[in-house]
């Protein structure tokens, strides 16, 4: 099974195949063996190619923070490309994120509204400026996880615009 993460603009893909005692791992053209996996909300422990590793982790939305030797890596999980789910998730273009930390000043749309390319969906106030979050594509507002007054961080998802609603049953 493939797992994809991004960090600092780069993409990293790992492929894990189960074995009787753990997993075989393929990464950047090499094979590794992983066993002894233990997971808690704060720690992950495993044996990688015979070496025991324990790392501190913290999850927040689609990002896993991992600490190693005084470094911290925010690893953003990438959704798999072919999936069933609410319209819009398969389209990364429709995921509108905050360009910098700020506060939601006003929200111009509601979930399930039809929107047209260029429409202002939300206004963010940041660094004493007003930032208009506009949709880059026609579609439907699939998710609206924030509301007026919310403090948001850089890259936080503000609105998700999905593909045009199609008449089909979601699986």
């Amino acid at each position: 099974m493939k797992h994809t993460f991004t960090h600092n603009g780069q993409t990293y893909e790992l492929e894990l195949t189960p074995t009787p005692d753990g997993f075989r791992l393929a990464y950047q053209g090499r094979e590794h063996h992983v066993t002894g996996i233990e997971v808690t909300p704060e720690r992950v422990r495993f044996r990688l190619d015979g070496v025991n590793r324990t790392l501190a982790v913290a999850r927040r939305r689609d990002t896993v923070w991992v600490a190693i030797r005084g470094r911290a890596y925010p690893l953003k999980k990438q959704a798999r490309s072919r999936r069933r789910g609410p319209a819009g998730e398969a389209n990364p273009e429709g995921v509108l994120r905050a360009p910098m930390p700020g506060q939601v000043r006003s929200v111009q749309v509601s979930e399930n509204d039809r929107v047209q390319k260029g429409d202002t969906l939300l206004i963010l106030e940041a660094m004493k400026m007003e930032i208009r979050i506009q949709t880059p594509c026609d579609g439907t507002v699939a998710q609206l996880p924030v509301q007026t007054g919310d403090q948001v961080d850089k890259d936080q998802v503000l609105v998700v615009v999905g593909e045009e609603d199609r008449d089909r049953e979601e699986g």
Partner: protein
Amino acid sequence: MPPFTKILIANRAEIAVRIIHACREMGIQTVAVYSEADADALHVEMADEAVPIGRAPAGESYLRGDKIIAAARQTGAQAVHPGYGFLAENADFAQAVADAGLTFIGPPPDAIRALGDKAAARSLMEAAGVPVVPGYQGTDADEVLAEKAAEIGYPVLVKAAAGGGGKGMRMARNAQELPEALESARREARHAFGDPRLILEKYLAEARHIEFQILADQHGNLTHLNERECSIQRRHQKIIEETPSPLMTPELRGEMGAAAVAAARAVGYTNAGTVEFIVDPATRAFYFLEMNTRLQVEHPITEQVTGVDLVQAQIRLAAGEPLALPVRLEPRGHAIECRVYAEDPGSGFLPATGPVLQFSPPQGPGIRVDSGIRSGDRITTHYDPMIAKIIVHAADRAAAIRRMQAALRETVLLGLTTNLEFLQAVLAHPVFQAGEATTRFIEQHLSEWQPAPPPLGALLAAVFSVQYSGDSVQCSGAAERYTPWRALANFRLGRGR
């Protein structure tokens, strides 16, 4: 008998925690003040009493001297410790505290006022025989300034007389650049400080920032507790400090220490303060830069090598106790402080915000961590994004650097971008290790720094964290293949060797 019964701390985060520690040891009751954003903060929890003083923006809370004094009255506090930043160097606030019949734990308002004005401070120091950066602080007419700039010699720094924190400062590399620099600095000075007056100073291309800690009682006794080297800076803000300075010799310490004491004496200084100098590493010529009329962020490194608790000293001096220190305090060993900030060194040190998901500070012999932040706290844009100060003390400089490197490697800080990795890059750099860093170190040697890519172990940990936690990742809606394992909070697989 403690010098005061109850002290109000007019500050927040790590310095408020620091002051509360000192008060506790002295048997003094503490009052914390807090904004809405800090309702669950450590300093609020630690204090004996806590008074809310307004909404998150500092201008509605920590900068409201009237509310702070009202809180002191309400709780019966006898003294106010301003910490650093906020109102610590606000002469009007110090005066208001005194007028309210309370003790301000710091110098007299007049000393704060005199040293807050760069032009006045330069004149005072010149009169006291303290060497100042070659410059000019007289009339403001552009023709006169141009003449004086030529006399001083380019490049020249144009600074706001009422300024600080790097604001209202411009550099002119030659006579052609001067008019624009003057106009621009004047505009920013008027806007930021309400005072367009300017001073000129020679720009020293390669300089070391070395400051001296001063303590003075109310009976005319002053002393210094040696120097701190603070040349590792970004955005005119220090991020690593150490003592002793690698550049120092006993002779230079004697000369600079005497100049620092003379500077403090010239303004009738009392309590704790720091005299900052610029030193030319080639000639070891030193010049007065400014004096900070408060406790410094980096005070812990002086505490480590002298054994003096500076906050407790401040409290005693404010109560009128005489200075009770030996004439000369030789530093013992070497101490380094690293300031951990929520910021992105790979993107121009832009401040970062977000929740601190996990903070696990380092521990061990010779390691001290001063912090007001805990796992679960949020870093916002309302305040300075400093998360913690990590301080180490060891027998010598090389041992201190090793100890700091080990401490940083052991630190866990998850949830937002910090400069932890960047600090390690500074410590590993040969120029820093040789003790030769000037104030342009980061600009010259680490301007292109980027964080390292994630190692395989980190990626794997992320895979398993997502795969085996109770909740699935929000953006993936489909059923996972390993459904039987999802329900377990603690998951084990294949424990055999």
